[in-house]
Protein backbone atom coordinates (compact mmCIF):
# COMPACT_ATOMS: atom_id res chain seq x y z
CA UNK A 1 0.00 0.00 0.00
CA UNK A 2 2.57 2.51 1.11
CA UNK A 3 4.80 1.53 -1.80
CA UNK A 4 2.10 2.36 -4.30
CA UNK A 5 1.17 5.78 -2.97
CA UNK A 6 4.76 6.77 -2.47
CA UNK A 7 5.63 8.36 -5.77
CA UNK A 8 9.04 9.88 -6.23
CA UNK A 9 8.80 13.61 -6.72
CA UNK A 10 11.23 16.26 -7.91
CA UNK A 11 11.31 19.50 -5.93
CA UNK A 12 11.38 22.50 -8.26
CA UNK A 13 10.32 26.14 -8.27
CA UNK A 14 8.03 27.48 -10.95
CA UNK A 15 7.76 31.23 -11.58
CA UNK A 16 5.12 33.11 -13.54
CA UNK A 17 5.51 36.68 -14.72
CA UNK A 18 4.54 39.20 -17.34
CA UNK A 19 0.86 38.83 -16.41
CA UNK A 20 0.69 35.02 -16.07
CA UNK A 21 0.63 35.38 -12.27
CA UNK A 22 -3.06 36.13 -12.56
CA UNK A 23 -3.73 32.60 -13.79
CA UNK A 24 -1.89 31.08 -10.84
CA UNK A 25 -3.45 32.56 -7.71
CA UNK A 26 -1.79 35.92 -8.37
CA UNK A 27 1.47 34.52 -7.11
CA UNK A 28 4.78 34.73 -8.88
CA UNK A 29 6.68 31.85 -7.28
CA UNK A 30 5.36 28.36 -6.56
CA UNK A 31 7.25 25.46 -4.96
CA UNK A 32 6.17 22.35 -6.83
CA UNK A 33 6.79 18.67 -6.08
CA UNK A 34 6.60 17.21 -9.54
CA UNK A 35 6.08 13.45 -10.01
CA UNK A 36 9.42 12.11 -11.24
CA UNK A 37 7.83 10.03 -13.96
CA UNK A 38 4.91 10.78 -16.23
CA UNK A 39 1.89 8.56 -16.88
CA UNK A 40 3.80 6.56 -19.48
CA UNK A 41 6.65 5.86 -17.08
CA UNK A 42 9.05 8.29 -18.72
CA UNK A 43 11.12 10.85 -16.76
CA UNK A 44 9.22 14.11 -16.20
CA UNK A 45 9.95 16.68 -18.88
CA UNK A 46 8.72 20.19 -19.63
CA UNK A 47 5.73 18.92 -21.63
CA UNK A 48 4.65 16.89 -18.61
CA UNK A 49 5.24 19.86 -16.29
CA UNK A 50 3.02 22.10 -18.43
CA UNK A 51 0.24 19.53 -18.35
CA UNK A 52 0.74 19.01 -14.61
CA UNK A 53 0.52 22.78 -13.95
CA UNK A 54 -2.71 23.05 -15.93
CA UNK A 55 -4.28 20.20 -13.99
CA UNK A 56 -2.94 20.90 -10.53
CA UNK A 57 -1.81 24.46 -10.07
CA UNK A 58 -4.02 26.59 -12.30
CA UNK A 59 -7.21 27.61 -10.54
CA UNK A 60 -8.27 29.89 -13.38
CA UNK A 61 -10.50 28.21 -15.97
CA UNK A 62 -8.93 30.14 -18.87
CA UNK A 63 -6.32 27.49 -19.69
CA UNK A 64 -6.13 28.74 -23.29
CA UNK A 65 -4.27 31.79 -21.96
CA UNK A 66 -1.47 29.40 -21.03
CA UNK A 67 -1.80 26.43 -23.37
CA UNK A 68 -3.06 26.33 -26.97
CA UNK A 69 -3.45 23.05 -28.89
CA UNK A 70 -1.57 21.16 -26.16
CA UNK A 71 1.49 23.38 -26.40
CA UNK A 72 2.53 26.46 -24.51
CA UNK A 73 0.77 29.47 -25.99
CA UNK A 74 2.93 31.24 -28.60
CA UNK A 75 4.15 34.48 -27.04
CA UNK A 76 4.92 32.89 -23.67
CA UNK A 77 8.65 32.47 -23.06
CA UNK A 78 9.99 29.56 -21.05
CA UNK A 79 13.27 29.93 -19.20
CA UNK A 80 14.96 26.92 -17.62
CA UNK A 81 17.34 28.11 -14.91
CA UNK A 82 17.40 31.49 -16.73
CA UNK A 83 18.23 29.93 -20.10
CA UNK A 84 15.89 30.10 -23.08
CA UNK A 85 14.24 26.69 -23.30
CA UNK A 86 15.13 26.64 -27.02
CA UNK A 87 18.71 26.08 -25.85
CA UNK A 88 17.65 23.21 -23.60
CA UNK A 89 15.50 21.04 -25.83
CA UNK A 90 12.15 22.78 -25.19
CA UNK A 91 9.39 20.36 -24.19
CA UNK A 92 11.76 17.38 -24.17
CA UNK A 93 14.02 18.83 -21.46
CA UNK A 94 14.04 16.44 -18.49
CA UNK A 95 13.39 18.21 -15.23
CA UNK A 96 16.16 18.07 -12.63
CA UNK A 97 15.82 18.57 -8.87
CA UNK A 98 15.88 22.25 -7.80
CA UNK A 99 15.33 23.49 -11.35
CA UNK A 100 13.71 26.87 -11.70
CA UNK A 101 11.26 27.11 -14.57
CA UNK A 102 10.03 30.58 -15.48
CA UNK A 103 7.04 31.24 -17.70
CA UNK A 104 6.95 34.86 -18.82
CA UNK A 105 4.29 36.30 -21.05
CA UNK A 106 5.19 38.78 -23.74
CA UNK A 107 1.52 39.27 -24.48
CA UNK A 108 0.36 41.44 -21.63
CA UNK A 109 0.44 45.19 -21.36
CA UNK A 110 2.87 47.49 -23.12
Amino acid at each position, binding site marked *: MSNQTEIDTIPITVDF*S*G*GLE*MLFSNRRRHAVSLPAIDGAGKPANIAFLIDYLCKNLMKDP*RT*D*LFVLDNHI*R*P*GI*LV*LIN*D*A*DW*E*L*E*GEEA*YEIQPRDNI*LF*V*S*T*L*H*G*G
Partner: protein
Amino acid sequence: MVSTLCAACKTERAYIKRPKNHAKLCKTCFISVFEDEVHHTITSSHLFYPGEKVAIGASGGKDSTVLASVLKTLNERHGYGLDLVLLSIDEGIKGYRDDSLETVKRNAVQYNMPLKVVSYEELYDWTMDQVVETIGKKGNCTYCGVFRRQALDRGAKKLGIKHVVTGHNADDIAETVLMNLLRGDLARLSRSTSIVTGDNRSEVKRSKPLKYSYEKEIVLYAYHKGLDYFSTECIYSPEAFRGGPRSLIKQLERVRPSAILDIVRSGEDMARLIPGDSPSSCACKGQTSAPIAADEDDIGGCGSQGGRTSDKRMAAIEKQLRENEAHEALEIDVAKVKSGSSVGERDKQIDLPLRNGSGLARGAPRQVLGTCVRCGYMSSQAICQACMLLENLNKNRAQIQI
Protein backbone atom coordinates in the same frame (compact mmCIF):
# COMPACT_ATOMS: atom_id res chain seq x y z
CA MET B 1 22.48 18.61 -21.65
CA VAL B 2 25.83 20.25 -22.27
CA SER B 3 25.43 23.99 -22.16
CA THR B 4 26.36 26.02 -25.21
CA LEU B 5 28.94 28.79 -25.16
CA CYS B 6 28.12 32.35 -26.17
CA ALA B 7 28.73 32.90 -29.89
CA ALA B 8 30.11 36.40 -29.25
CA CYS B 9 32.54 36.13 -26.33
CA LYS B 10 33.02 32.36 -26.53
CA THR B 11 33.65 32.19 -22.80
CA GLU B 12 30.32 32.54 -21.00
CA ARG B 13 27.38 30.16 -21.17
CA ALA B 14 24.66 31.08 -23.69
CA TYR B 15 21.32 31.98 -22.15
CA ILE B 16 19.55 33.66 -25.05
CA LYS B 17 18.71 32.45 -28.54
CA ARG B 18 18.01 35.47 -30.70
CA PRO B 19 14.85 35.23 -32.79
CA LYS B 20 16.23 37.26 -35.71
CA ASN B 21 19.32 35.14 -36.42
CA HIS B 22 19.36 32.25 -33.93
CA ALA B 23 22.59 33.55 -32.37
CA LYS B 24 23.19 32.04 -28.95
CA LEU B 25 24.45 34.66 -26.52
CA CYS B 26 25.37 35.04 -22.87
CA LYS B 27 23.48 37.58 -20.77
CA THR B 28 26.17 40.27 -20.98
CA CYS B 29 26.64 39.99 -24.74
CA PHE B 30 22.87 39.93 -25.30
CA ILE B 31 22.34 43.12 -23.30
CA SER B 32 25.11 44.88 -25.18
CA VAL B 33 24.03 43.72 -28.65
CA PHE B 34 20.41 44.73 -27.91
CA GLU B 35 21.58 48.21 -26.89
CA ASP B 36 23.98 48.46 -29.85
CA GLU B 37 21.18 47.70 -32.28
CA VAL B 38 18.92 50.38 -30.83
CA HIS B 39 21.88 52.78 -30.99
CA HIS B 40 22.34 51.82 -34.64
CA THR B 41 18.65 52.49 -35.37
CA ILE B 42 18.93 55.88 -33.66
CA THR B 43 22.12 57.02 -35.38
CA SER B 44 21.33 55.65 -38.84
CA SER B 45 17.97 57.38 -38.91
CA HIS B 46 19.31 60.59 -37.28
CA LEU B 47 16.54 60.41 -34.72
CA PHE B 48 17.90 62.99 -32.28
CA TYR B 49 20.05 66.10 -32.25
CA PRO B 50 22.34 67.11 -29.40
CA GLY B 51 20.54 69.02 -26.68
CA GLU B 52 17.13 67.83 -27.84
CA LYS B 53 14.41 67.56 -25.23
CA VAL B 54 12.67 64.22 -25.63
CA ALA B 55 9.60 62.90 -23.84
CA ILE B 56 9.35 59.15 -23.39
CA GLY B 57 5.71 58.02 -23.54
CA ALA B 58 5.76 55.88 -20.40
CA SER B 59 3.01 53.50 -19.43
CA GLY B 60 4.87 51.45 -16.83
CA GLY B 61 4.64 48.45 -19.19
CA LYS B 62 7.58 46.46 -20.53
CA ASP B 63 8.15 48.32 -23.80
CA SER B 64 8.27 51.85 -22.47
CA THR B 65 10.21 50.75 -19.39
CA VAL B 66 12.85 49.11 -21.60
CA LEU B 67 12.83 52.17 -23.88
CA ALA B 68 13.49 54.49 -20.93
CA SER B 69 16.25 52.26 -19.60
CA VAL B 70 17.96 51.85 -22.97
CA LEU B 71 17.72 55.54 -23.86
CA LYS B 72 19.20 56.54 -20.52
CA THR B 73 22.04 54.04 -21.02
CA LEU B 74 22.75 55.10 -24.62
CA ASN B 75 22.43 58.80 -23.84
CA GLU B 76 25.15 58.46 -21.22
CA ARG B 77 27.31 55.99 -23.13
CA HIS B 78 27.31 57.78 -26.48
CA GLY B 79 26.84 61.37 -25.32
CA TYR B 80 23.62 62.04 -27.25
CA GLY B 81 23.15 65.09 -25.04
CA LEU B 82 19.42 64.40 -24.70
CA ASP B 83 17.23 65.89 -22.04
CA LEU B 84 14.93 62.93 -21.25
CA VAL B 85 11.56 63.25 -19.53
CA LEU B 86 8.97 60.59 -18.73
CA LEU B 87 5.51 61.51 -19.96
CA SER B 88 2.56 59.45 -18.73
CA ILE B 89 -1.11 59.53 -19.50
CA ASP B 90 -3.64 58.96 -16.77
CA GLU B 91 -6.67 57.62 -18.62
CA GLY B 92 -8.64 57.53 -15.40
CA ILE B 93 -9.07 53.76 -15.03
CA LYS B 94 -9.26 52.86 -11.36
CA GLY B 95 -7.43 49.70 -10.34
CA TYR B 96 -5.40 49.68 -13.54
CA ARG B 97 -3.81 52.94 -14.51
CA ASP B 98 -3.37 54.18 -10.97
CA ASP B 99 -1.35 51.00 -10.28
CA SER B 100 0.75 51.26 -13.41
CA LEU B 101 1.42 54.95 -12.66
CA GLU B 102 3.06 53.79 -9.44
CA THR B 103 5.50 51.80 -11.60
CA VAL B 104 6.23 54.89 -13.69
CA LYS B 105 6.85 56.88 -10.50
CA ARG B 106 9.39 54.27 -9.38
CA ASN B 107 10.98 54.36 -12.86
CA ALA B 108 11.34 58.14 -12.57
CA VAL B 109 13.37 57.63 -9.39
CA GLN B 110 15.33 54.66 -10.77
CA TYR B 111 16.29 56.47 -13.96
CA ASN B 112 16.54 59.90 -12.37
CA MET B 113 14.19 61.45 -14.94
CA PRO B 114 11.47 64.04 -14.36
CA LEU B 115 7.93 62.71 -14.73
CA LYS B 116 4.92 64.55 -16.14
CA VAL B 117 1.45 63.03 -15.89
CA VAL B 118 -1.45 64.40 -17.96
CA SER B 119 -4.94 63.06 -17.43
CA TYR B 120 -7.89 62.60 -19.76
CA GLU B 121 -9.91 64.29 -17.07
CA GLU B 122 -7.96 67.55 -17.25
CA LEU B 123 -7.76 67.48 -21.07
CA TYR B 124 -11.20 66.21 -22.03
CA ASP B 125 -13.26 66.43 -18.87
CA TRP B 126 -13.86 62.68 -19.16
CA THR B 127 -12.14 59.76 -17.44
CA MET B 128 -12.19 56.38 -19.19
CA ASP B 129 -14.21 55.06 -16.26
CA GLN B 130 -16.87 57.67 -17.13
CA VAL B 131 -16.61 56.91 -20.86
CA VAL B 132 -17.26 53.23 -20.21
CA GLU B 133 -20.11 54.11 -17.85
CA THR B 134 -21.66 56.08 -20.70
CA ILE B 135 -20.98 54.03 -23.83
CA GLY B 136 -20.28 50.60 -22.36
CA LYS B 137 -17.24 48.44 -22.90
CA LYS B 138 -17.74 48.05 -26.64
CA GLY B 139 -15.60 50.40 -28.68
CA ASN B 140 -14.19 52.19 -25.68
CA CYS B 141 -10.67 51.32 -26.85
CA THR B 142 -11.22 53.50 -29.91
CA TYR B 143 -11.93 56.46 -27.65
CA CYS B 144 -8.97 55.66 -25.46
CA GLY B 145 -6.61 55.33 -28.43
CA VAL B 146 -7.68 58.58 -30.07
CA PHE B 147 -7.51 60.45 -26.78
CA ARG B 148 -4.08 59.04 -25.96
CA ARG B 149 -2.49 60.26 -29.17
CA GLN B 150 -3.51 63.83 -28.50
CA ALA B 151 -2.80 63.56 -24.81
CA LEU B 152 0.83 62.64 -25.44
CA ASP B 153 1.23 65.56 -27.84
CA ARG B 154 -0.48 68.00 -25.54
CA GLY B 155 1.53 66.77 -22.56
CA ALA B 156 4.70 67.28 -24.58
CA LYS B 157 3.59 70.79 -25.56
CA LYS B 158 3.00 71.66 -21.93
CA LEU B 159 6.59 70.66 -21.26
CA GLY B 160 7.85 72.60 -24.27
CA ILE B 161 8.99 69.34 -25.87
CA LYS B 162 8.69 68.67 -29.60
CA HIS B 163 9.64 65.00 -29.75
CA VAL B 164 7.85 62.06 -28.15
CA VAL B 165 9.33 58.56 -28.34
CA THR B 166 7.12 55.52 -27.84
CA GLY B 167 7.89 51.87 -27.11
CA HIS B 168 6.34 50.34 -30.23
CA ASN B 169 8.32 47.21 -31.05
CA ALA B 170 8.81 45.05 -34.17
CA ASP B 171 5.85 42.83 -33.22
CA ASP B 172 3.61 45.90 -32.97
CA ILE B 173 4.75 47.16 -36.38
CA ALA B 174 4.34 43.71 -37.96
CA GLU B 175 0.83 43.46 -36.55
CA THR B 176 -0.10 46.87 -37.92
CA VAL B 177 1.38 46.01 -41.32
CA LEU B 178 -0.77 42.87 -41.46
CA MET B 179 -3.90 44.72 -40.36
CA ASN B 180 -3.45 47.47 -42.90
CA LEU B 181 -2.77 44.96 -45.65
CA LEU B 182 -5.90 43.02 -44.72
CA ARG B 183 -7.87 46.24 -44.88
CA GLY B 184 -6.13 47.42 -48.00
CA ASP B 185 -5.26 50.68 -46.26
CA LEU B 186 -2.06 51.66 -48.01
CA ALA B 187 -1.82 55.16 -46.62
CA ARG B 188 -1.92 53.86 -43.09
CA LEU B 189 0.44 51.02 -43.98
CA SER B 190 3.08 53.51 -44.97
CA ARG B 191 2.59 55.68 -41.90
CA SER B 192 2.77 52.74 -39.57
CA THR B 193 6.12 51.57 -40.89
CA SER B 194 7.81 54.97 -40.57
CA ILE B 195 10.19 55.35 -37.68
CA VAL B 196 9.26 59.02 -37.43
CA THR B 197 5.79 60.44 -37.82
CA GLY B 198 4.57 64.00 -37.72
CA ASP B 199 6.42 66.72 -39.58
CA ASN B 200 7.22 70.39 -39.48
CA ARG B 201 3.54 71.25 -39.82
CA SER B 202 2.76 69.30 -36.69
CA GLU B 203 4.13 70.61 -33.46
CA VAL B 204 5.23 67.32 -31.99
CA LYS B 205 7.09 64.60 -33.84
CA ARG B 206 6.98 61.00 -32.74
CA SER B 207 9.39 58.18 -33.18
CA LYS B 208 9.78 54.52 -32.36
CA PRO B 209 13.38 53.67 -31.52
CA LEU B 210 12.45 50.05 -30.74
CA LYS B 211 10.73 49.42 -34.09
CA TYR B 212 13.25 46.71 -35.01
CA SER B 213 13.38 45.16 -31.53
CA TYR B 214 11.55 41.87 -31.02
CA GLU B 215 9.03 41.80 -28.21
CA LYS B 216 10.71 38.60 -27.03
CA GLU B 217 14.03 40.38 -26.66
CA ILE B 218 12.41 43.35 -24.94
CA VAL B 219 10.98 41.00 -22.32
CA LEU B 220 14.30 39.17 -21.97
CA TYR B 221 16.18 42.46 -21.70
CA ALA B 222 13.84 43.59 -18.93
CA TYR B 223 14.21 40.22 -17.20
CA HIS B 224 17.98 39.94 -17.36
CA LYS B 225 18.44 43.59 -16.36
CA GLY B 226 15.94 43.19 -13.53
CA LEU B 227 13.78 46.08 -14.73
CA ASP B 228 10.65 46.95 -12.84
CA TYR B 229 7.55 46.90 -15.06
CA PHE B 230 3.82 46.47 -14.82
CA SER B 231 2.06 43.73 -16.77
CA THR B 232 -1.61 43.72 -15.86
CA GLU B 233 -4.07 43.94 -18.74
CA CYS B 234 -6.28 46.96 -19.03
CA ILE B 235 -9.55 46.03 -17.35
CA TYR B 236 -11.51 47.36 -20.34
CA SER B 237 -9.68 45.32 -22.98
CA PRO B 238 -8.62 42.14 -21.23
CA GLU B 239 -6.94 39.50 -23.32
CA ALA B 240 -6.80 41.65 -26.41
CA PHE B 241 -4.25 39.18 -27.73
CA ARG B 242 -6.70 36.30 -28.02
CA GLY B 243 -7.31 35.78 -31.68
CA GLY B 244 -6.68 38.40 -34.32
CA PRO B 245 -3.49 39.49 -36.02
CA ARG B 246 -1.49 39.50 -32.80
CA SER B 247 -1.96 35.77 -32.35
CA LEU B 248 -1.06 35.20 -35.96
CA ILE B 249 2.21 37.11 -35.50
CA LYS B 250 3.12 35.04 -32.47
CA GLN B 251 2.31 31.79 -34.25
CA LEU B 252 4.40 32.82 -37.24
CA GLU B 253 7.26 33.61 -34.88
CA ARG B 254 7.01 30.14 -33.38
CA VAL B 255 7.36 28.57 -36.83
CA ARG B 256 10.03 30.94 -38.14
CA PRO B 257 11.18 33.70 -35.77
CA SER B 258 12.60 35.91 -38.51
CA ALA B 259 9.05 36.27 -39.92
CA ILE B 260 8.45 39.30 -37.70
CA LEU B 261 11.28 41.41 -39.06
CA ASP B 262 10.52 40.11 -42.56
CA ILE B 263 7.00 41.51 -42.26
CA VAL B 264 8.32 44.84 -40.97
CA ARG B 265 10.79 45.07 -43.86
CA SER B 266 8.16 44.01 -46.39
CA GLY B 267 5.84 46.66 -44.99
CA GLU B 268 8.54 49.26 -45.53
CA ASP B 269 9.15 48.03 -49.06
CA MET B 270 5.45 48.17 -49.90
CA ALA B 271 5.16 51.62 -48.34
CA ARG B 272 7.95 52.76 -50.65
CA LEU B 273 5.71 51.97 -53.60
CA ILE B 274 2.99 54.30 -52.42
CA PRO B 275 3.10 57.68 -54.16
CA GLY B 276 4.25 60.64 -52.18
CA ASP B 277 5.77 58.61 -49.46
CA SER B 278 9.26 58.16 -48.27
CA PRO B 279 9.07 55.42 -45.72
CA SER B 280 11.70 54.76 -43.19
CA SER B 281 14.57 52.47 -43.67
CA CYS B 282 17.89 51.88 -42.08
CA ALA B 283 20.53 54.22 -43.41
CA CYS B 284 22.65 51.25 -44.34
CA LYS B 285 20.19 50.62 -47.10
CA GLY B 286 21.03 53.96 -48.59
CA GLN B 287 18.92 56.60 -46.89
CA THR B 288 20.60 59.36 -45.04
CA SER B 289 17.97 60.82 -42.84
CA ALA B 290 14.83 59.69 -41.14
CA PRO B 291 11.97 60.20 -43.54
CA ILE B 292 8.88 61.62 -42.00
CA ALA B 293 5.32 60.59 -42.55
CA ALA B 294 2.28 62.69 -41.98
CA ASP B 295 0.73 61.38 -38.88
CA GLU B 296 -2.65 61.68 -37.42
CA ASP B 297 -3.42 58.17 -36.42
CA ASP B 298 -0.57 55.86 -37.24
CA ILE B 299 -1.22 53.00 -34.93
CA GLY B 300 -4.82 52.74 -33.93
CA GLY B 301 -6.33 51.65 -30.74
CA CYS B 302 -5.51 50.84 -27.31
CA GLY B 303 -3.31 49.15 -24.82
CA SER B 304 -0.64 51.22 -23.27
CA GLN B 305 1.29 50.47 -26.42
CA GLY B 306 -1.51 50.98 -28.83
CA GLY B 307 -0.45 48.27 -31.26
CA ARG B 308 -2.55 45.37 -30.15
CA THR B 309 -5.82 44.72 -31.78
CA SER B 310 -8.29 41.96 -31.19
CA ASP B 311 -11.05 40.92 -33.51
CA LYS B 312 -13.52 42.81 -31.38
CA ARG B 313 -11.38 45.89 -31.44
CA MET B 314 -10.79 45.48 -35.14
CA ALA B 315 -14.54 45.60 -35.58
CA ALA B 316 -14.69 48.75 -33.50
CA ILE B 317 -11.95 50.31 -35.55
CA GLU B 318 -13.65 49.31 -38.77
CA LYS B 319 -16.75 51.06 -37.55
CA GLN B 320 -14.70 54.11 -36.72
CA LEU B 321 -13.15 54.03 -40.16
CA ARG B 322 -16.56 53.88 -41.80
CA GLU B 323 -17.56 56.88 -39.76
CA ASN B 324 -14.45 58.66 -40.95
CA GLU B 325 -15.33 57.85 -44.52
CA ALA B 326 -18.60 59.63 -44.03
CA HIS B 327 -16.53 62.73 -43.43
CA GLU B 328 -14.27 62.14 -46.32
CA ALA B 329 -15.96 64.52 -48.71
CA LEU B 330 -15.40 67.16 -46.11
CA GLU B 331 -11.78 66.15 -45.75
CA ILE B 332 -11.09 66.50 -49.44
CA ASP B 333 -12.68 69.93 -49.49
CA VAL B 334 -10.47 70.99 -46.63
CA ALA B 335 -7.47 69.61 -48.43
CA LYS B 336 -8.30 71.63 -51.56
CA VAL B 337 -8.59 74.82 -49.63
CA LYS B 338 -5.40 74.27 -47.68
CA SER B 339 -3.17 73.16 -50.51
CA GLY B 340 -4.78 74.53 -53.61
CA SER B 341 -4.59 71.03 -54.98
CA SER B 342 -7.49 69.70 -56.93
CA VAL B 343 -6.57 66.09 -56.45
CA GLY B 344 -8.28 64.16 -53.72
CA GLU B 345 -6.55 61.53 -51.67
CA ARG B 346 -8.37 58.73 -53.45
CA ASP B 347 -7.19 59.83 -56.88
CA LYS B 348 -3.61 60.02 -55.80
CA GLN B 349 -3.68 56.54 -54.46
CA ILE B 350 -5.00 55.03 -57.64
CA ASP B 351 -2.03 56.37 -59.63
CA LEU B 352 0.75 53.88 -59.89
CA PRO B 353 4.10 55.05 -58.63
CA LEU B 354 6.51 56.16 -61.31
CA ARG B 355 9.92 54.65 -61.04
CA ASN B 356 12.63 57.24 -61.27
CA GLY B 357 16.38 57.08 -60.83
CA SER B 358 16.22 56.57 -57.12
CA GLY B 359 13.56 53.95 -57.42
CA LEU B 360 11.27 56.07 -55.30
CA ALA B 361 8.19 57.83 -56.47
CA ARG B 362 7.97 61.33 -55.12
CA GLY B 363 4.59 62.89 -55.49
CA ALA B 364 2.70 65.57 -53.71
CA PRO B 365 2.10 65.07 -50.02
CA ARG B 366 -0.40 62.28 -49.74
CA GLN B 367 -2.31 63.70 -46.87
CA VAL B 368 -2.93 67.34 -46.21
CA LEU B 369 -2.89 68.38 -42.64
CA GLY B 370 -4.85 71.27 -41.30
CA THR B 371 -5.97 72.00 -37.80
CA CYS B 372 -9.16 71.11 -36.01
CA VAL B 373 -11.57 74.04 -35.96
CA ARG B 374 -12.56 73.19 -32.39
CA CYS B 375 -9.38 72.42 -30.54
CA GLY B 376 -6.65 73.54 -32.92
CA TYR B 377 -4.96 70.15 -32.89
CA MET B 378 -3.56 69.00 -36.22
CA SER B 379 -6.11 67.13 -38.24
CA SER B 380 -6.78 66.17 -41.83
CA GLN B 381 -10.44 66.81 -41.20
CA ALA B 382 -12.22 69.99 -40.15
CA ILE B 383 -12.99 68.47 -36.78
CA CYS B 384 -10.42 66.13 -35.32
CA GLN B 385 -11.22 62.59 -34.24
CA ALA B 386 -11.00 63.43 -30.56
CA CYS B 387 -13.45 66.31 -30.91
CA MET B 388 -15.84 64.09 -32.88
CA LEU B 389 -15.74 61.46 -30.18
CA LEU B 390 -16.14 64.09 -27.46
CA GLU B 391 -19.18 65.51 -29.20
CA ASN B 392 -20.68 62.04 -29.15
CA LEU B 393 -19.88 61.58 -25.48
CA ASN B 394 -21.17 64.98 -24.45
CA LYS B 395 -24.46 64.34 -26.27
CA ASN B 396 -24.83 61.14 -24.31
CA ARG B 397 -24.04 62.89 -21.05
CA ALA B 398 -26.59 65.59 -21.82
CA GLN B 399 -29.21 62.96 -22.51
CA ILE B 400 -28.48 61.18 -19.26
CA GLN B 401 -28.74 64.43 -17.33
CA ILE B 402 -32.11 65.25 -18.90
